[in-house]
């Protein structure tokens, strides 16, 4: 019996050592799957907003994702002003309004196409539609295009950095 008590103690002691080791290894394994620092460091893109033309849809790239930039024409802006959900989505830089958002359908991540004649976006995967300010017009997408974190720096936009304008959008539930 005495021996068994000692075996029991040794068993528990081993269990304790093994548990510490298991937690430590799981932590290391989780961290090894994390995005690398180089991947995260490459997560900033600067856009010079002065080069865009009104009504012309341009696709930029940020963190491997397409970024739609559409400088609003007077006609688009007029339409957007009629709807508060639309106008508040636009980014104002140096007096001009831009739709600037992640060009992935909020349903399952396909890239919707810009239709020049209708000034809107149509997703070929499951038929979702978005207007010229990026607001959803037709389901299945649950919400308008997401707006990436940005900071206004003169006539430039730094994507990936959180500025007060973006924070306000996030707080107001305009983007995620």
């Amino acid at each position: 019996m005495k021996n068994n008590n000692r075996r029991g103690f040794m068993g528990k002691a081993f269990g304790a050592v093994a548990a510490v080791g298991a937690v430590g290894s799981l932590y290391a394994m989780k961290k090894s799957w994390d995005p690398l620092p180089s991947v995260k460091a490459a997560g900033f893109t600067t856009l010079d907003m002065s080069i865009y033309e009104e009504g012309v849809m341009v696709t930029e790239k940020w963190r491997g994702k397409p970024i739609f930039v559409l400088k609003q024409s007077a006609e688009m802006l007029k339409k957007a002003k009629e709807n508060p959900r639309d106008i508040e989505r636009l980014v104002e830089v140096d007096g001009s309004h831009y739709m600037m958002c992640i060009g992935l359908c909020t349903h399952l991540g396909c890239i919707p196409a810009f239709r020049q004649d209708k000034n809107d976006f149509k997703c070929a995967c499951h038929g979702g539609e978005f207007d010229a300010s990026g607001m959803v017009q037709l389901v299945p997408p649950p919400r308008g295009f997401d707006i990436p974190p940005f900071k206004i720096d003169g006539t430039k936009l730094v994507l990936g950095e959180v500025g007060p304008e973006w924070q306000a959008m996030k707080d107001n539930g305009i983007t995620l």
Partner: protein
Amino acid sequence: MAHFTKATSVKDWFNQRLAVEKVEKVMMSEYWIPKNINFLWAMGMVLVITFAMLLVSGIFLLMYYVPTVDGAFDSVNYTIMREVDFGWLWRHVHGVAASVVFLIIYIHMFTGIYYGSYKKGREMIWISGMLLFVAFSAEAFSGYMLPWGQMSYWAGMVITNLFSGGSLHADGLVEWIRGDYVPAQAFLGRFFMLHVLLIPLAIIGLIALHFGALRIPHVNNQDGEEIDFDVESEKYLAGKKAESKVMRFANDFMAKDLMVVGIFLVFFFYLVFYNYGFAMDPVNFDPADGLKTPAHIYPEWYFLWSYEILRPFNIDLGLVLFAFAQVIFVLLPFLDRSPNSVPANRRGLFGIWFWVMIVNLIVLTAMGKLPPEGIFSTIGLVSAILFVVQWLALPFITKFEKKV
């Protein structure tokens, strides 16, 4: 210490050290199989052979495949397909086998459901089998990423997005799985590792469990009859072979088993040599482009039925029902409340349940491939609802089943 004597033969030498005769008896000549079975009982061996072909062809592909975003596409479509002698053979065997293995898995699975081979002590066979199905699905998906074509990239994008959980917006989890904001080098590297090492290891372990789970309850038979294997095997060994209800695994059962395997292999290599196109999506012959979505994204045929359950609903409900469809088959032994383990056709309502399930899965598969428009969306929606209702009704249908 064990006592060893001078060996009288090579066989005796091994016998003293490894007990080869005993192993042969336990694994083959005295592993008993019921006589009352049909060709559907050969699907297990067909699956073993198909898995072996996947393994061998995979080993040859692995020698030339380059798991980098810049090198992967060319290593498959140029190096393996054009430069390596018979490289095309390994690729087509691998691609066709990956598709056909699911056909056989489905036949194997529905044979089990039809004959009630998931109850009366056979629950662990069923559960380990369904875990194998999950592991094979993960293996198929991770392998689909490797050529790094448009379908690889966008399937990777859409499927990893499912882990954001719809309105839960667990984007951090999705980025963690990918190791990047979008599928990129970290993603390709880890899915390569999963495909060639971790998941195959899990599959081999699960196959061992699946076979082990068979030992005690033994293989089922065409009538779900409870056989006393000790009594029947004694009869056989006493020379009353005709009277006994069982036969040896080898060579009795294996002889016919391998006959079926032979017929399967003729069909299989007909596909590999003359009709491999169905396993090679043309869209995947365009290199991955993160800034251009293909017009239609659809999974391989064997995932279409569960994809169609995801599609007609809004994202949250779709995800819940999709998850339901993925796990519900595992619970079959516990949802079937009837004590009967006879073929479905002798079980009244359950027989109807079985055939409706088969037809409905075929309809879901067809609708999953068609564009989600007009009448097709309606049929898809009705079928998806029917699938869920059928499973919810199963405990009630079987509870009131008459004992046969």
